[in-house]
């Protein structure tokens, strides 16, 4: 049993650290990526990778208790709601007239995401 506890301890530590790292990576993408669709991809890293790893780490930490059930419920809701919200958001962005950038930076075209001036508000 001692060994199993040790393994669980280190596994949860690794999961928590990896989850925190993924959150930071996703948030960096959210700030650095050029337009809404790519930023949506970065936010997906937070919503799936970061959230699931951190919640799994916490579940290993709390063992078979009520907390694990609550964490499982949170995980369940996040797994259902974040793809739905992401889909609705992508669809809203598309129908507002924004189009994804389908070329690399060297093409030097900039009309990809600024073709609907009415939707861009002040910074």
């Amino acid at each position: 049993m001692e060994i199993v506890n040790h393994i669980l301890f280190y596994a949860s530590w690794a999961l928590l650290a990896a989850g925190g790292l993924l959150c930071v990576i996703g948030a960096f993408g959210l700030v650095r990526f050029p337009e809404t669709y790519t930023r949506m991809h970065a936010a997906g890293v937070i919503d799936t990778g970061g959230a699931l790893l951190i919640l799994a780490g916490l579940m290993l930490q709390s063992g078979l208790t009520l907390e694990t059930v609550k964490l499982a419920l949170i995980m369940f809701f996040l797994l259902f709601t974040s793809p739905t919200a992401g889909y609705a958001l992508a669809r809203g962005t598309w129908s507002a007239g924004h189009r994804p950038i389908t070329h690399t930076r060297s093409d030097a075209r900039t009309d990809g995401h600024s073709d609907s001036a009415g939707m861009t508000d002040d910074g």
Partner: protein
Amino acid sequence: MFWAAMIGILVALALALVRAIAGPTVYDRILAVNSFGTLTVLALSVIGFLMGRPDFLDIALVYALINFIGTIAVLKFLRYGDFARATQADDNDLV
């Protein structure tokens, strides 16, 4: 050891806040608010364990649900200017 996760979440919260303030389009802001909500849920879960009383995970649960409802309400508002309209015309936009 919850510190590793907590630091990551706090940094991510700050970056999401930057995106929400910077914009530039409304959809970027909605995306940032959505990510911010998910990160808040994670932060609340980790804070519970960090402070030694993990029995307040219910708050995180409530947040996970309210965040989703909020995002859908915002998108419905932007799309139709209304919270309760039928969505028949939806499929014509993608053409």
